């Protein structure tokens, strides 16, 4: 008696009827994810020229010597689109290992043998990758099953639990029928998600990106290699692309759109909402290799007369920026930059303290048309985290943060 069965062992296993007569051999097994995501629902059996379907509740027992049935009323096989066939759709294909955060290729599948209503059923337990499953696959068919088990025993297994596997299916119709979604991926760090997406084929990439929540997709897309960003955005329809670009930080969105062909970026811009669109189009005006092209238009600026209490309120109101926010700018009535207050200083005074008293000694700023090199120089020389960018009249236009500078340096 076994309690684990590998898919390679199941393949070619002989099927016997109630009287112990041989009917045929197993060719494939299928899940119906909408009904049950782990139980093997039916088996494809080849009997001479005929292809038969064996339902899971028609089986008495599994062993390495064969399958015994308890019901002989078998129906001819017919393909239905709700079926995930393991040999055809899973074996040797790439899937996403959510836990290990990478794309892997399926070598074998491990089933757990369960009792249900007096008969044996198979539950998908793990997807196997690595050496052990390769030995099994390569020797399958010409080495007896029991020997293979002994042969593989010394090799440590490498498997991924079925609940952490995510199948990649480009066809949206089929995704629905097979009950595939990418919600599990949405909890991953955007950088990990980007790595996974980069590992997939172009078709699969767009499929994953367009299925994800647009905020998650935007975060992941920002981390993807710029060249790939372009090909992903081009493959999406303008509306989906616009939804994603809206969620990206304006400077990154502008960079991505600038790389696209004029026609495509125009289409995407048209689909975008008014506010993010104006931010992005504004940024698109600047040359790519200048401070203007580098800066972000998401910053917090307050009137010169504001107090710490005002600043606290503004910080709370801009919660989505908190991870990169480290300076509050002061502007006069015409929008000209007059001072910068590091976020930490807010804790040094009472709520009524005017921000003016907290500004940094020298006010560093850079004009929009300054070259990239000048920007990195300033960051290096003054050890700052944020640098305000101003237009010709001294009006505050945006801010460059340290992470933008790191990207510039990495490009070299």
């Amino acid at each position, binding site marked *: 008696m076994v309690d684990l069965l590998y898919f390679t062992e199941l393949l070619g296993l002989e099927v016997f009827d109630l009287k112990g007569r041989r009917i045929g051999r197993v060719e494939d097994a299928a899940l119906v994810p909408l009904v049950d995501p782990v139980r093997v629902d039916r088996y494809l059996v080849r009997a001479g020229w005929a292809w038969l379907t064996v339902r899971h509740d028609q089986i008495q027992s599994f062993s390495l010597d064969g399958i015994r049935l308890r019901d002989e009323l078998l129906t001819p096989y017919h393909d239905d689109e709700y079926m995930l066939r393991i040999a055809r759709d899973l*074996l040797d294909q790439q899937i996403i290992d959510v836990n290990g955060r990478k794309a892997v290729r399926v070598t074998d599948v491990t089933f757990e043998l369960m009792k249900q209503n007096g008969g044996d059923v198979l539950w998908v337990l793990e997807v196997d990758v690595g050496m052990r499953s390769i030995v099994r696959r390569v020797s399958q068919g010409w080495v007896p099953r029991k020997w293979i088990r002994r042969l593989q025993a010394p090799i440590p297994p490498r498997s991924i639990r079925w609940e952490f596997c995510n199948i990649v299916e480009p066809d949206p119709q089929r995704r629905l029928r097979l009950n595939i979604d990418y919600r599990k991926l949405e909890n991953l760090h955007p950088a990990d998600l980007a790595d996974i997406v980069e590992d997939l084929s172009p078709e699969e990439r767009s499929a994953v990106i367009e299925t994800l929540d647009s905020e998650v997709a935007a975060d992941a897309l920002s981390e993807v290699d710029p060249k*790939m960003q372009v090909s992903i955005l081009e493959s999406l329809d303008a509306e989906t692309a616009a939804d994603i670009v809206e969620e990206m930080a304006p400077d990154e969105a502008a960079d991505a759109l600038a790389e696209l062909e004029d026609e495509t970026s125009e289409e995407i811009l048209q689909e975008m909402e008014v506010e993010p669109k104006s931010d992005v189009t504004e940024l698109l005006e600047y040359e790519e290799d200048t401070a203007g092209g580098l800066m972000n238009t998401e910053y917090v600026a307050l009137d010169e007369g504001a107090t710490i209490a005002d600043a606290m309120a503004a910080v709370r109101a801009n919660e989505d920026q908190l991870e990169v926010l480290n300076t509050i700018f002061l502007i006069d009535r015409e929008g000209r930059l007059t001072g910068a207050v590091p976020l930490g200083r807010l804790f040094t005074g009472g709520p009524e303290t005017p921000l003016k008293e907290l500004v940094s000694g020298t006010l560093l700023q850079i004009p929009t048309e300054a070259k990239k090199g000048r920007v990195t120089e300033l960051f290096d020389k003054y050890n700052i985290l944020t640098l305000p960018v101003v237009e010709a009249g001294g009006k505050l236009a945006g801010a460059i943060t340290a992470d933008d500078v790191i990207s510039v340096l990495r490009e070299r």
Partner: protein
Amino acid sequence: MTVTAPAHRASLWKKSRIQLALFFAVLGPGFITAMVDNDSGGILTYSQAGARWGYLPLWTLLPITVLLIITQEMNSRMGAVTGKGLQDLIREEFGLRATFFMMVTLVVTNLTNVMAEFAGIAGSLELFGISRYISVPICAAGVWFLIVRGTYRSVEKIFLFASALYITYIISAVLLKPDWKESLIYSFKPVLMLDTDYIVMLIAMVGTSIAPWMQFYLQAAVVEKGVTVKEYGASRFEVIVGCIGTSVIAFFIIVACAAAIWATGPRDIDDPATAALALKPFGKYAFVLFSAGLFNASLFAASILPLSTAYSVCEGLGFESGVNKRFSEAPVFYWLYTLLIAVGAGVVLLPHFPLVKMILFSQVLNGVLLPVVLIFMIKLINKKELMGEWTNSRFYNWVSWVSIVLIIGLTAALAGITARQAWK
């Protein structure tokens, strides 16, 4: 008319500039693959052909170029359309077992190829009086570090530079003052003789030009470079330019050997360094350039082969791969890569290692592996669900099948003949 003409010209100018920019954006994979094709084994074959038969074999280069373009074009198209490597596609469509045996054969043939490259490094530098016990370990370590420390882009630049160095063969041939009229005539005039040696040589020229590893490397490089269907036109052009470039270099190698060796006394040579040495009496510079070319070609191929092999094997069998991973993340990849270099370089330093036999053996294995790879390729490229509208056209399919049958026939013949020679 007079008003529209300048505008039209401007757009044409802009168009051609865009075309040029596109070409440079995709430049790399096809060109490099084609150039590496002239590795130390290739140089040996071409030198032999020129030294023994003079200008006569030049005509084969034209059909070889066509065969090369047909096979490589299919790979770059598959890479651009599917975004997957050849080994991934084979695995997905033909299963693990086919992939496994293919990969094992690939490792063995490529290991012997790497040995030949390091032998080429040793031979060429010994012409300059550098002992192989110094040159081979240094080059092996250099190759290892270059790939492990470099990024794809920086490595590609070095490779493109190495491709440019093949020009030494052209200069070397010009310096030897060959008979240009003869060489042009025989480039287009097929000469067939019922002489076993001659026929073997012709087959060897085809066999050395089309090797299984190239198909894997080219497709992987196209995918890695992120060439998309849109840029595919430029990519195809790059492949064609590269293949023609390969044959041009081959032409000059044959011409150089014909001018120097064959013109004074046709004879057989058995390693590429001998060919370089034979050029010495005819001019110091020709000799230096020819040997420098051999060194460059061998080092170049020695850098690409182990990497390409480790990459294909790991991708195909599902192990972590890529030089951007750390050793602990991709142990199989790094071990395979390191072993290929260490063993390939190591045996060259063993005094009594039967290197020539090994290289012959690898040619036989090449002949076994190539048909399988080519047939898989043509089956894959005709799959609608993979290639969509980019499958082969009927005419192209017909041409491809004829070429494949031709290549298979010739390599099988070469494998048979070398096997028989090794037996003797």
